[in-house]
Each structure stands twice: as structure tokens, then as C-alpha cells.
């Protein structure tokens, strides 16, 4: 297949999605204008885009600064740092606990219970522990939020191994370490990545919401609360747009990594990766 034909095919595949997106934005603009909705209730998409391009101009200009972009960077690092610490810790604890069935069986009910706790409620406590302007307070919240789903899924992936596949290993007289490396970990990868995908979205939500409880000026959560209370809704919405862009990009990055590390899995799902 030629590159042009491939591009056309993909375009046709995505066309309905693009059409829906454009349709929604146009309808939004049209409704705001025709019903004369106040900008503090719902700004026009065109106003949000104008503010967004203004921020990009400020960001690119050498002697100007864009608080929005600084905020986005700060929030991204909080989310990313928390993601790495939380997911890394979750995978590590799962690997250790699955080595001894009794440990994982004893800890799993607590992990599942902890996973249902609204951990964001601890944000003010973390602010007290680490200091309200310290990014560590937000990273801690994100890390705790992503830790439990990652740990739970990893333990499942390491333990839900096909009995026959284990018997094969037994027939080869494989050591527990070899079974872990050659069977349990590869078996757990799809579980781990499905947790990481959820965690990527959770980490940004966790960071922004934790910032609602207070933080340095240049963070998205604080930016949104301040602009909203100042009735500058185009600015608040631009920050929301920015948070969405970061969240989606983060998710896609994890997805890309997944496809890289597990080519067999994407193919198994029948995903069209032409």
C-alpha cells in the first residue's frame, strides 16, 4: 500500500470523529451567540481559542511570560512525578508481595479497600505535611492515588497465570526466578499497562484537584480557581483546555509505550496499526 493510500484510509477512519468534534464546537458557538449566554456562564469557543493563541504568543515572545504555560509545566511535573513514584512503587510492591503468596493474599483486601477511598480528601493533610507551595505535597497525593490500582493490577497479572503454562515450566524444572522473568512478568504486562493508562488520567486529575486546595500561583488548579473568581472565564476555560491537552497527551504517550513494549498484544486485540 502506498503512503498516500494509507493516509486516505486513516483519514476516512477518523473522519466521523473529526466531524463530531467540529460539529460540537460550531453548535456551542452558535448556541452561545443565539441565546446570548453571558460569558461568565459559558464563553464562546472562539473567545477561548483567542485567549489560547494570545497565551501561545506570550509564551513564544522572548521578553514576555505566560503564566498559563508556566502553570501547565508545573502541574505536569507534579502529575508526572507522582505517576512515576506511585506506579513504580505499586509495581515494586506487587513484585515483592507476589513472591510470597501469603503476603499478597494478606495485603490484597487492604489494597482493594484503599483503592475505593477518595484519596483526594487527604490533599489538605499533604499540604500540612509537605508545605502548601511544595510540589511534593501534590506529587504525594498523585502517587497515593495511582499506587493502589497499579499494585492491584500487577498482582493480578503476576498471579492469574494459565495453569498449563505453569505446568510447562514445572516440566522444564524452572526455578521460581525463571518463572517470574519468563512467564509471570510478561503475563502481567497487559494488566500493568491497563493500570498505567488509568493512572495517567488519574495523575493529572489528582494534581489539578489537589491544587484546588491551595498551591503556588503558577499551577493549573490555582490558575483556574483564581481566574474563575475574577470572572475571567475565557482564561479559566483556556486552562481547562490546557489540562485536557496534557491529560490526553499523557494517555497517548502511555499507549505508545504499550504498543512498543507489547507488539503482540495490540495485534491480539485486532487493533488496526497499519
Amino acid at each position, binding site marked *: 500500500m502506498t503512503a498516500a493510500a494509507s493516509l486516505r484510509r486513516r483519514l476516512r477512519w477518523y473522519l466521523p470523529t473529526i466531524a463530531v468534534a467540529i460539529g460540537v464546537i460550531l453548535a456551542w458557538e452558535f448556541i452561545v451567540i443565539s441565546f446570548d449566554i453571558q460569558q461568565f456562564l459559558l464563553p464562546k469557543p472562539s473567545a477561548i481559542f483567542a485567549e489560547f493563541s494570545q497565551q501561545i504568543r506570550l509564551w513564544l515572545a522572548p521578553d514576555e511570560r505566560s503564566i498559563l504555560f508556566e502553570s501547565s509545566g508545573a502541574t505536569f511535573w507534579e502529575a508526572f512525578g507522582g505517576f512515576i513514584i506511585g506506579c513504580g512503587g505499586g509495581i515494586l510492591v506487587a513484585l515483592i508481595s507476589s513472591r510470597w503468596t501469603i503476603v499478597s493474599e494478606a495485603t490484597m483486601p487492604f489494597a482493594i479497600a484503599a483503592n475505593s477511598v477518595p484519596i483526594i480528601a487527604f490533599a489538605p493533610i499533604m499540604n500540612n505535611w509537605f508545605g502548601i507551595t511544595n510540589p511534593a505535597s501534590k506529587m504525594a497525593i498523585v502517587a497515593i492515588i495511582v499506587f493502589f490500582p497499579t499494585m492491584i493490577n500487577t498482582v493480578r497479572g503476576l498471579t492469574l497465570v494459565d495453569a*498449563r503454562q505453569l*505446568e510447562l515450566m514445572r516440566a*522444564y*524444572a524452572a526455578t521460581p526466578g525463571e518463572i517470574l522473568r519468563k512467564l509471570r512478568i510478561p503475563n502481567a504486562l497487559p494488566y500493568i499497562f491497563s493500570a498505567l493508562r488509568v493512572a495517567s488520567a488519574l495523575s493529572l486529575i489528582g494534581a489539578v484537584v489537589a491544587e484546588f486546595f491551595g498551591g503556588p500561583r503558577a499551577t493549573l488548579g490555582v490558575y483556574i480557581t483564581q481566574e474563575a473568581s475574577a470572572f475571567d472565564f475565557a482564561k479559566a476555560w483556556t486552562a481547562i483546555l490546557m489540562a485536557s491537552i496534557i491529560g490526553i497527551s499523557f494517555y497517548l504517550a502511555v499507549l505508545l509505550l504499550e504498543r512498543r513494549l507489547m507488539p*503482540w*498484544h495490540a495485534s491480539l486485540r485486532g487493533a488496526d496499526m497499519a
Partner: protein
Amino acid sequence: MQSAGRQSAIWARDINKIFNPGAEEEVIALQGINLTVAAGEFVSLIGPSGCGKSTLMRLIGDLTQPTSGELLVNGKRPRQARLDRDYGMVFQAATLYDWRSVSKNVQLPLEIMGYAKAERRQRAQAMLEMVELGAFSEHYPWQLSGGMQQRVSIARALVFEPAVLLMDEPFGALDEFTRERMNLELLRIWQRTGKTIVFVTHSISEAVFLSKRIVVMSPRPGRITEIVENPLPYPRDFTTRNAPAYHALVAKVRELLRDAHDSDEAAG
């Protein structure tokens, strides 16, 4: 007795296997099993479900232990035979590792046994050529048909040259046509390698076509009803299935299985 055990590939005396002994749901899976299999022999275990044929195979392969009785494989305890890597195993499902290419799947036992990379690759390729999949070594399991996957799992079971090949309904999930082709292929492999094969099946025609002896089993409790000698000469091919002796043997085994079933119904 022990000296006979040392010479045979498999030597079982008075084997009993009871699941959940003493409990409410106690099941006598196997009772008074006596079986001797010579080195290089092809033996089928056949019987209705619940007759313990898979359990017997799993006992031989040290995947479970007998409640009582004596079992030797190549003159050793099954556990020792397993640690010596005497067993190649093929299950009903191909049980390939999705994340490994066909060649890497076949190399898996060699990796664990510490073979050097070059030798692993070369042996896997030779095995894949024997099962006529030489051109598919870099494919992934999901790209192969069910029959091809099962051939990969046979290659994987044979690649480290185990003395005994244990096959638990390996072609049970395949269609009739593929199954008959696989039967021919298995006989060819057996004659080339001279392995001892224990083959569990519930297909009468398959058991008669393949094996030198057919162990007919019956359920509740699982026991051996009769061991049928198969006089059909090797090599066998697709014309074997047309021979009158073949049909006579199929009829005989079917009769034995029906007797076992009837007595089970009467007892139940």
C-alpha cells in the same frame, strides 16, 4: 520387580490416586493401576471422561503424586525424572506464550536449560523444519492456525530431546481433517525420534491408528479395563484406515468402552 522397572520407560504397580481423601467429596480417581511401557513404545490411554486417563498421565509426569503404589520412569522416581528433564509435554491447548515468536517459543525450554544462543536457534529451527514450520519461525502464535500452533507445541516438547513425550488430548480441539494429518505427522516424528509416547485421547480411531498398545480405562473408580495389543504394522499411512484389521480393532475397542460404560451405569 525393581529390575523390570529399571528397564522400562514407565513402570507402575498398584497405583491408587484419591482426591480429597477422608473428605465428603472424596474421589477415587485411579484404583490398582498396573502398567508397563517399554522404551520407544507408543501407548494410548482411552476412556470416557472421569476414567482417570489424564490423572494417570499427570502422575507419570510428576504434575501430581499417587496416594499409594509404586511408579518409576526410566528407572527413577517421577520427580527425579522431571528434574532430569525427561518429559516433553503437549496439552490440548497449544499453550504457547503469546509474547514470544514461534522460534522463541520453541527455544524456551532450551533457555531454561542453559543452552547457548546459537545452539538454541539452530535446534529450534531444525525442530520447526521437522514439523514443517521452518518458514514461520519469526511469526507470532496468533498468526498461526490451531493445527500449526499445536505443531509448534510439539516442536517445543521435543526440542530438548526428552526421553518421554506425554500428550494429553493434543488434537482434541482440531477438526477431523487436520487431526488425521496431525496423526500421520506424529507417527512420522515418532519413528524418526524413537521417543516413548503416552497419548491420552477420547477418539477410538485415533488411538487405534497411532498406538502399539491401547489402554482402555473405565470410570468410578478409574481403572484399566483391558490393554489391547495393536497388530497393525508400522509405518502406517492413510491406507491403514481402510484395512479390515483396523476396523476390527476399532470395533473391539468400542465394545470394551461400551462394556465399561454399561457396568458404570449399572453400578451408578
